[in-house]
């Protein structure tokens, strides 16, 4: 271990240089931090090139869909709900104000004052009317009632713009980017506040919902949380160490290590240009307790060995020499646990895992160089003051006695304990099988958060504020092209102009090709009067192909879409759906006089095309392109869901799968999902399978390291025992309690491994050392429960308590992580201290287990 000695020597001989070097690193890292970019977009849980995400983005573009803020105006006091002049005036004013805000896609904003009413004219019977639904706010209750009657006639608006119970009206605000939603929601809130101030008795309540606001707001609050939680965690650890050591001098060193590790790691992350995602924002909180632990070891041992008046360097050398290997291994195993997150397919989780792993190794390195440098820089007087705070005096108290009792107990009742743990594990396995995999970004806020409240209120009144899009696409075009080619060739065999015409256009997308061909033939017919009839004949064929190519105007395409939509509307999971079919039926009904019996699809493609042409004479003809592409070969069914839970979305997916199985898609038609609610399901599925990989790989890597460290298969396996039991127990508990397996919970699994194996390493190392020294198991137990068990318990408490500030965070994922990490620390400490001696007690040949000679043999066998 030449390197180790050299490192310690360096830090003791040149403490100043060490300080300056580290300080430089810290400063270099710290100047990166101001350029921090926070990213809370759950879409980024998937790589940019992930297939579903790419499709989702394409569909957003194809159908001009934007992320939306949904504002709800609710009135439960007025007997007519929102349909009263005052509420509608407020709605009108609010909507007008939002329209002109920066970042709002004005022409696509949907509210009562920006949409059209399609109706029968009351003055001229038999006349269809396209007019603004609410150009200006109504002045009388009668006018308000007319708006109500109009909205309830229009399926595209009813339950979307105004709730079925009439108590809530919505403003759907499309925005240029999700990252604008927090700012916009604040600007909107100001208008709302003004409205409420102007008429406090209106009975109007305003709510804001929609995933973009939730996500962006989460980002802002997360940022604030980072600034609070991390220093708070630091403070907690500081206080705790004060309780343990009661020496400011002593605890300064670990605090320096922790701060150095945190700043350098965060600086590195930000400096590389990575965005700080929800997981990365927790890096400081993860690193701090872990970083402190090693220096606590060094300081404890140093204060034990050092005698005032002696050269502290000698004592230091001994201490570091003694602790280096176990510290290195515990650091590596923890780092491996985190680094295994790199096996998940989720970039923010990968970045988090790798950086925490780096931070842990960095903390180890800092401990090895900084703590000795710190100690040698202390004056002798201060050093002797250090001695006064000997740890032993504190530890003969309750904890010491308790631990000694546990040791005796676990050996005495070893058989019973082993059986108990087997039973608990078996029950836990069952618990694991009952785990509910589910997540929903809105639930990242606490129940009483205004966004959660808004979410609840709006989804009670409306059909749902969560969007999913079912995209059907007719992909077959080659057949159409080759059919047309054959037909044209038959009309003029060997015609050179036709051949040229075809070759210049054949590689274009179907729709474009047909349009261009039609125009070219039209020109030819005009210019080449001699062959006019021939060209016009071809033009007819091209036009026929053109009509045929518009699949979602054809009775076949429309009736499939219609069937699917009706089936989905029949399910409780889907609040409402809007589609081309809804639009066609509505316009068709109004064209036919408005009778409810006429609410049906036009029977031919031409009739459908002409129905659409009529709709296009409205104020918002472009709304059509949210439902179908201009070539009518791709259509989107907009589903409004009441719940953004991944489980519910998965059920809807299953529902559609079932339908497609029972009613096979027409030839050439492909069906795919898009929408944020769907994207959330995708990354969750990736995460679940990814986490399993990560867990398995971490397990084997840690096992491998244990085998190398202990050079013994048996001890290596023993070392894995406490963490295995702990993970099973924790996840079994999650299953039983019914806590959803969400993103933070998933991430915990792998890193639990790295953290909880530390205890076993220390425990087994010391057991073996003491056994080799004493040769007696009872004596070993006795001694292990003096020192090592105490160190384990203390470390468990440090780490567990270090995470407790998370419990007070207003954001649920922080609470989850804090709670479960504390829990994991506690359980794994208990399992290590109680289960390991009991199991070892049951192994008859302890000589073989701990003996050096056998080590060699086992190594060969392995």
């Amino acid at each position: 271990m030449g390197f180790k000695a050299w490192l310690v020597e360096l830090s003791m001989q040149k403490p100043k240089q060490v300080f300056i070097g580290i300080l430089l690193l810290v400063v270099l890292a710290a100047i990166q931090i101001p350029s921090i970019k926070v990213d809370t977009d759950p879409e980024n849980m998937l790589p940019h090139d992930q297939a579903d995400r790419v499709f989702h983005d394409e569909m957003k573009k194809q159908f001009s869909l934007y992320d939306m803020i949904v504002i709800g105006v609710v009135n439960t006091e007025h007997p007519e709900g929102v349909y009263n002049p005052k509420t509608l005036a407020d709605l009108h004013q609010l909507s007008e104000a939002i329209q002109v805000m920066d970042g709002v896609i004005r022409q696509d904003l949907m509210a009562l004052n920006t949409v059209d009413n399609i109706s029968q004219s009351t003055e001229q019977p038999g006349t269809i009317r396209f007019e603004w639904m609410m150009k200006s706010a109504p002045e009388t209750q009668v006018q308000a009632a007319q708006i109500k009657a109009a909205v309830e006639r229009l399926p595209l608006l009813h339950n979307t713009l105004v709730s079925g119970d009439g108590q809530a009206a919505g403003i759907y605000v499309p925005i240029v980017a999700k990252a604008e939603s927090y700012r916009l929601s604040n600007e909107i809130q100001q208008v709302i506040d003004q409205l409420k101030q102007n008429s406090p008795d209106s009975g109007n309540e305003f709510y804001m919902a929609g995933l973009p606001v939730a996500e962006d707001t989460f980002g802002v609050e997360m940022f604030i949380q980072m600034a609070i939680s991390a220093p708070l965690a630091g403070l907690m650890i500081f206080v705790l160490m004060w309780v343990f050591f009661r020496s400011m001098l002593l605890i300064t060193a670990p605090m320096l290590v922790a701060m150095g590790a945190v700043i350098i790691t965060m600086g590195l992350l930000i400096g590389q240009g990575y965005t700080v995602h929800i997981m990365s924002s927790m890096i400081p909180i993860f690193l701090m307790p872990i970083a402190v632990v090693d220096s606590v070891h060094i300081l404890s041992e140093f204060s034990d060995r050092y005698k005032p008046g002696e050269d502290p360097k000698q004592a230091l050398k001994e201490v570091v020499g003694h602790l280096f290997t176990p510290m290195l291994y515990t650091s590596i195993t923890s780092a491996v646990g985190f680094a295994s997150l790199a096996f998940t397919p989720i970039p923010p989780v990968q970045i988090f895992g790798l950086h925490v792993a780096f931070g842990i190794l960095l903390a180890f390195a800092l401990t090895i160089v900084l703590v000795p440098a710190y100690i040698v820089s202390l004056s002798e007087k201060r050093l002797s003051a250090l001695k006064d705070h000997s740890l032993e005096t504190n530890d003969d108290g309750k904890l010491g006695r308790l631990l000694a009792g546990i040791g005796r107990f676990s050996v005495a009742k070893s058989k019973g304990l082993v059986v108990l743990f087997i039973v608990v594990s078996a029950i836990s396995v069952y618990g694991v099988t009952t785990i509910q995999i589910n997540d929903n970004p809105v639930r990242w806020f606490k129940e009483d958060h205004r966004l959660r409240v808004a979410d609840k209120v709006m989804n009670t009144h409306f059909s749902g504020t969560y969007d999913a899009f079912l995209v059907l696409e007719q992909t077959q075009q080659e057949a159409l092209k080759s059919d047309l080619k054959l037909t044209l060739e038959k009309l003029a065999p060997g015609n050179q102009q036709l051949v040229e015409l075809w070759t210049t256009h054949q590689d274009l997308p179907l729709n474009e090709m047909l349009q261009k061909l039609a125009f070219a033939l039209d020109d030819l017919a005009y210019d080449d009067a001699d062959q006019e009839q021939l060209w016009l004949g071809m033009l007819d064929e091209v036009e026929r192909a053109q009509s045929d190519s518009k699949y979602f105007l054809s009775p076949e395409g429309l009736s499939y879409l219609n069937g699917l939509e009706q089936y989905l509307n029949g399910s409780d999971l889907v609040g409402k759906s809007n589609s081309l079919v809804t639009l066609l039926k509505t316009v068709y009904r109004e064209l036919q006089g408005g009778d409810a019996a006429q609410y049906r699809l036009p029977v031919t493609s031409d009739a459908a095309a002409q129905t659409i042409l009529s709709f296009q004479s409205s104020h918002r003809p472009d709304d059509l392109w949210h439902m179908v592409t201009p070539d009518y070969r791709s259509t989107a069914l907009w589903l409004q869901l009441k719940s953004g839970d991944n489980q519910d979305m998965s059920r809807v997916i299953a529902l559609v799968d079932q339908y497609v199985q029972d009613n096979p898609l027409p030839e050439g038609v492909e069906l795919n999902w898009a929408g944020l609610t769907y994207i959330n399901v995708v990354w969750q599925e990736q995460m679940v399978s990814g986490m399993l990989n990560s867990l398995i790989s971490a397990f084997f890597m840690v096992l491998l390291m244990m085998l190398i460290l202990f050079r013994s298969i048996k001890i290596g396996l023993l070392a894995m025992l406490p963490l295995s039991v702990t993970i099973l127990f924790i996840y079994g508990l999650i299953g039983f309690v019914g806590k959803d397996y969400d993103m933070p919970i998933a991430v915990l699994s792998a890193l639990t491994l790295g953290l909880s194996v530390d205890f076993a390493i220390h425990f087994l190392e010391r057991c073996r050392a003491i056994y080799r020294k004493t040769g007696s198991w009872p004596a070993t137990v006795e001694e292990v429960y003096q020192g090592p068990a105490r160190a384990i318990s203390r470390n468990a408490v440090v780490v567990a308590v270090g995470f407790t500030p998370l419990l007070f965070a207003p954001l649920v994922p922080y609470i989850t992580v804090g709670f479960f990490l504390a829990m994991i620390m506690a359980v794994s400490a208990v399992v290590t201290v109680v289960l390991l001696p009991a199991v070892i007690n049951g192994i008859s040949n302890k000589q073989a287990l701990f003996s050096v000679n056998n080590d060699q043999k086992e190594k060969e066998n392995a």
Partner: protein
Amino acid sequence: MRKFNLIKALLAVVSLSTAGTLQAADLQDADAIVERANLVSYYAGDDGRSEARMLIKDAQGREQKRQFTILRRDRSEGGEQDFLVVFSRPADVRNTVFLVSKKPGNDDDRWLYLPGLDLVKRISAGDKRTSFVGSHYFYEDVSGRGTEEDSHVLLETNATHYVIENTPVDASSVEFSKYIAWINKDTFLPEKIEYQDDNGALYRRVEVLASADVQGHITVTKSRVSDLRSGGQTTLEFRFQKYDLGMEQAVFSERSLRKPPREWLKR
């Protein structure tokens, strides 16, 4: 009534100047300029026919094409007129017909015939600023906006154009707060019109891209509307224009909806 006399008086000037008097003195009266521009744009000859090709392009560059023939007959110069719009392409809307009876200062009468549904439908035209068949043109752009619906101010007269600011008399009836028109001094064709919203932001532009002399009338052959908010635009090309064909009023009867007047539609 006074206004009408003014139009009559101006009309004499128009017929004299259409060939393009070179050094005509600049006009000062904004109303007069606008009236004249209205006549040049929408009342050339006593009747007329034109074949239109429309290219609707959205912000993503996706194109849709439409082709239709417009027949027009003036009941009185600068006053009421009738339009018949017959679609020929795409094939699935072929023979769809719009019949518009324009009544300046009043609601137009509008009818629609959908052959696929074999349905004649009257359309209530309370608002003329709705899309014309899904394009970026409004009905009003096709048939003309009543000159009395805006107040006009001559902002500037430069070497080539009269620049006129138009503010709606009834602001609640339209989506713009005002529009500026650049009217060619020689031809009186409004060559560019830009619309502003309540914030004074430009959001819509109508431009003449090409024009030609047809039977002594300056005639737009290509124009474009740009929706500056969405980034979409529609280009309209006119071909085979003819004036003073001698169409009868019967051509613009409801009967023509189901049975389009072939003789006037063919080139």
